[in-house]
């Protein structure tokens, strides 16, 4: 199916690829925020994931090792944030900004000498005849494993938060840390675990940018993807299924503007490349209006410092 010089099936397929980094990061951040911690360092964790994944993949010639290294890198960054905010009781907004600034600097430093190198390719999973089904094939059965992993993680997160006891505890900690503490739950440990899960997913998302989507390493290559992931969590009202919707909508916008650029439509390139950011703003406005609606859906203890005095 072709509309205006753009193949719709291919558009949807590439939309899924474009959305994957943000989907991963947003899912992780949603879990962290559900536990009541606002980590604004997603951008920093993503870019550390991007470079550590890239370096590991180049060194071992294995994208899988790269993605694992990226998850570890992101989780270590999140641990740093967790130590500061949970044990040293620092301001979460300021610490998150610090994490982003530090991550951008550190990644540029780690990335010295990796510019212009091609990473080992991440192969698509061979699903045999399934990928030849017209229409559905390219959309559902012709991706690399990370795309499926990201979908699995969203589904898993949804089920975890909704149906498991551990998920209930995590949400309780995020709604009222004092009550959870009084019931004997380890507020700080739950939060550290949630933050590290968020960091690992942000790292994976970053590595997907540097290993699959771009694929190469350039300084500051996340270009706001982490911030967009944060916006998608707000858009999704902290619900996993809506994170999926938001990330794919956003991926669609990104891909569409790239296609329009390639199709040589008479809109300046810069106008098209600012479209994703403008649309994020518009979406935030729609989700927040009427005033304060987004605040109602947020976990009640989000961003508040927990200090057990006894």
């Amino acid at each position: 199916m072709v509309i205006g010089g753009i193949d719709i099936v291919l558009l949807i397929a590439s939309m899924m690829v474009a959305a994957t980094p943000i989907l991963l990061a947003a899912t992780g951040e949603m879990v962290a925020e559900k536990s009541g911690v606002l980590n604004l360092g997603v951008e920093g964790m993503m870019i550390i994931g991007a470079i550590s994944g890239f370096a590991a993949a180049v060194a071992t010639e294995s994208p899988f090792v790269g993605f694992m290294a990226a998850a570890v890198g992101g989780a270590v960054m999140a641990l740093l944030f967790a130590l500061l905010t949970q044990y040293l009781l620092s301001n979460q907004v300021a610490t998150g900004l610090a994490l982003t600034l530090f991550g951008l600097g550190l990644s540029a430093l780690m990335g010295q000498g990796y510019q212009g190198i091609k990473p080992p390719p991440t192969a698509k999973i061979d699903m045999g005849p399934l990928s030849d089904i017209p229409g559905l094939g390219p959309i559902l059965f012709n991706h690399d494993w990370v795309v499926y992993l990201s979908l699995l993680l969203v589904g898993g997160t949804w089920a975890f938060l909704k149906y498991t006891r551990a998920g209930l505890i995590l949400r309780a900690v995020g709604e009222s840390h004092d009550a959870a503490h009084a019931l004997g739950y380890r507020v700080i440990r739950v939060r550290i675990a949630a933050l590290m899960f968020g960091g690992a997913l942000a790292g994976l998302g970053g590595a997907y940018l540097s290993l699959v989507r771009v694929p190469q390493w350039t300084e500051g290559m996340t270009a706001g993807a982490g911030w967009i992931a944060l916006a998608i969590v707000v858009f999704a009202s902290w619900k996993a299924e809506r994170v999926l919707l938001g990330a794919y909508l956003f991926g669609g916008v990104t891909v569409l503007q790239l296609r329009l650029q390639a199709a040589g439509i008479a809109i300046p390139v810069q106008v098209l490349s600012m479209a994703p950011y403008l649309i994020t703003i518009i979406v935030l406005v729609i989700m927040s209006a009427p005033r304060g609606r987004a605040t109602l859906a947020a976990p009640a203890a989000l961003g508040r410092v927990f200090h057990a005095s006894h």
Partner: protein
Amino acid sequence: MFRLEKRPTPSTFWSWGTPVLAVILTMIAGGMLFAMLGKDPVLAIKAIFWEPLFGANASYFRPQLLVKAGPLILIAIGLSLGFRAAVWNIGAEGQYIMGALCGGSVALAAYPAESFLLFPAMIIAGAIGGFIWAMIPALLKIRFGTNEILVSLMLVYVAENILSTLAFGPLKNPEGFGFPGSRNLQQYPSAHNADLIANTGLHWGVVTAFLAVIGAYILLNRHILGFQISVAGQAPRAARFAGVNPNTLVAICLGISGALAGLAGIFEVAGPGGQITDSFNVGYGFTAIIVAFLGRLHPVGILLAGLLMALTYIGGEMAQLSLSLPLAAIQAFQGMLLFFLLALDLLTNFRIRIGGLI
């Protein structure tokens, strides 16, 4: 067992002691980082903190200190007002770009007319540019409750795209032989923001930064608005009972910080930068966040922090030349500084008790 006991009031000693301690710890940790990169840590730290001030070529570098500190202080003063009131403008980089674009456009439109009115007009246009760009997140927050952190940050990317459109389009130098970028404002006497005393780096932007420090000090210590800003940040409910309108405060904080960032932008392109190119902005808007926190959101603190941060910029360039230390190392170094500062903040607000329960 360590136990944290909240202080009834923040410790004055530690609120000034932590930045100093943070700088020392960053030097140690930074030294280790440089050692891992295979550089002599002592030489690297000396190159960053000592050489620009007292080294052999210091006379060349000292003016650079003011050139770099000016915009950082100017932006950080504005940000600090908002941060005190828990209004998080982190899009100063975008407001800086828009200020430079608006002010620069005025100059380029007037070219080659000479008039003493041109420079003030550019400055006003620059401030308005930054102000308007900051009012977008402010109005969206007031009207719809939209998160100002995300909106102001998104607008940085929008501003960068506008900058690139204009730098390659309408603002491009018609006599530039196809090179990107605008006319050089340094060669346009009416528009040039020259050093007031030759070779000191002291241009109008630096003067404005000092004025902003004084203004912010008076505002915070002697004016009801400064009091309202502090109350709104520390106890939002109490502030509302005291009749503080949170919406007005959002508009004022974002408006002031936007205007100051815009001023920093136009002073930069009319002075040390000279040209509007698609990459004239070097991240002052983000580094200013570190400056604001390092200065404890206090005007005098920000003045000192801005100078220190400018020193690391210049020292970083020196270390790049003499030790081939990558410039990115300085960025990581600055980020590290903010981490240490936030971690040590604990000492300001809590007492650390060793031992079990009382």
